């Protein structure tokens, strides 16, 4: 029975490792300038975690195979130092691994989250609310008008709470339901939640960031490939969470300018 368990362990371990090692799960295309660092970090984590997993399982199978059916009545031999030393060694080994991943990975993380955007980054504001994303562009004056939550009137297309009657700056603000951006230009996305927590996730951009009500968070990224990608909410936000999505349209600069002009005419 013990030997059978050891065989099963080996089979399950190798079968689990097989699709990872042979890259059966293909990563979605990376369209960002920072994405390769995230992908490398993921690959490193997968390799380190994978080696530890396969090694530990095979070692377990080996011990089960060798010692499970022992019936000679001899005393069990312990490693010198007893359980304390084994636990301490495990802590040090795992701790070192986690620390190493953290130190190596901080660059990938910090490049996205802890560096300021460039001064010429295109500012776009995103508002997440149950259950849709809306995006605001500053318009011809280059300024975002202040928000007045009491003015939000979704039936009237006022998703952000603009007050064009009193704020002249609000009259040219462009509001759209799709995030349309120019390719190869840094985007500084300001995240604003209308009601509860939401999350901005575009897997091709390798970016995921929560919206937190009451906090103005921001992100910056540069998309390098044109195309249409999905933005999904990845923070359970209520009944319609499954339906909360929008599209990211990455356009060549001239198409983007035309798009912006067309939207401006609609406001």
């Amino acid at each position: 029975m013990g030997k059978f368990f050891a065989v099963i362990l080996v089979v399950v371990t190798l079968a689990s490792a097989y699709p990872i090692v042979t890259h059966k799960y293909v990563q979605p295309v990376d369209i960002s300038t920072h994405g390769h660092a995230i992908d490398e970090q993921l690959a490193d984590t997968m390799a380190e975690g994978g080696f530890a997993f396969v090694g530990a399982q095979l070692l377990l199978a080996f011990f089960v195979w060798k010692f499970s059916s022992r019936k000679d009545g001899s005393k069990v031999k312990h490693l010198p130092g007893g359980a304390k030393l084994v636990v301490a060694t495990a802590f040090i080994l795992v701790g070192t691994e986690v620390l190493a991943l953290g130190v190596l990975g901080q660059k990938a993380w910090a490049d996205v989250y802890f560096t300021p955007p460039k001064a010429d980054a295109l500012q776009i504001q995103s508002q997440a609310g149950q259950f849709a994303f809306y995006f605001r562009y500053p318009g011809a004056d280059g300024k975002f008008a202040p928000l007045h939550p009491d003015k939000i009137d979704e039936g009237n297309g006022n998703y952000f709470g603009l007050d064009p009657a009193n704020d002249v700056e609000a009259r040219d603000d462009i509001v759209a339901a799709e995030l349309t951006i120019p390719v190869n230009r840094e985007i500084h996305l300001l995240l604003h939640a209308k009601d509860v927590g939401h999350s901005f996730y575009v897997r091709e951009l390798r970016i995921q960031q929560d919206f937190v009500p009451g906090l103005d968070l921001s992100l910056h990224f540069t998309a390098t490939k044109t195309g249409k990608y999905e933005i999904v909410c990845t923070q359970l936000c209520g009944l319609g969470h499954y339906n909360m999505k929008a599209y990211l349209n990455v356009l060549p600069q001239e198409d983007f300018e035309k798009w912006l002009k067309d939207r401006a005419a609609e406001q």
Partner: protein
Amino acid sequence: MRVKAGYLAGLATLAVCAVIVHAMPSGGTVSGKVTYEGTPAKQKPIDMSKEPSCAKQHATPITTETVVTGSNNTLDNVVVYVSAGVPDENAPGQVVKFEQKGCQYIPHVLAFQVNQTLEISNADQTSHNIHPLPKVNREWNKSQPPGSAPISEKYDKPEFIPVKCNIHPWMHGNFAVMKNSHYAVTQGEGGFSLANLPPGKYTITAWHESYGDQSQDVTISGSETKTVNFVFKAKPY
């Protein structure tokens, strides 16, 4: 033979008279037009790309409907009703229908009477969550997956109720719950007609979701038709 023909002619005349009497209003009529002066707010196209099954139902994007105008400055979706002068009436048995189609409420403004049965249906391939926002009636919101049975509801107090969908933020409509059967919603060219008003003094009120309401008094004697026009002040923002 001649006698028989005479009878027939008499019967025919009676029948014609009966039809005429039946078709004639049993009282006076108030009719008129609702118009605006000034510049109304620009209606914005609605981007439904997050709901493809709805987006593909509209060849060109529909716009918001908070101000719907016709030619010659006429104003649609105005509820014109007798707010004073007639007693409250019991609800008719007729069911009024409110449809969710293409992620839009049809009609945008639905008027019906207190305790009249309202039937809400979902013609879309997506779930809706209808959420009327009354202040004096009981509030509720109900999910309606595609293909599910219509929802029946009633309101027991007169009120103007904004309606929204909890899933699709752009969806917006209005219920007008009326005390009596003398009401109309302007459609097409801002025109309305309130018929069958017995002689008396009435207050006629016109309500618009963005511009509020205004009233005029009118006195009806006999079966005359009185003209009452309303002019709302439109604002660009």
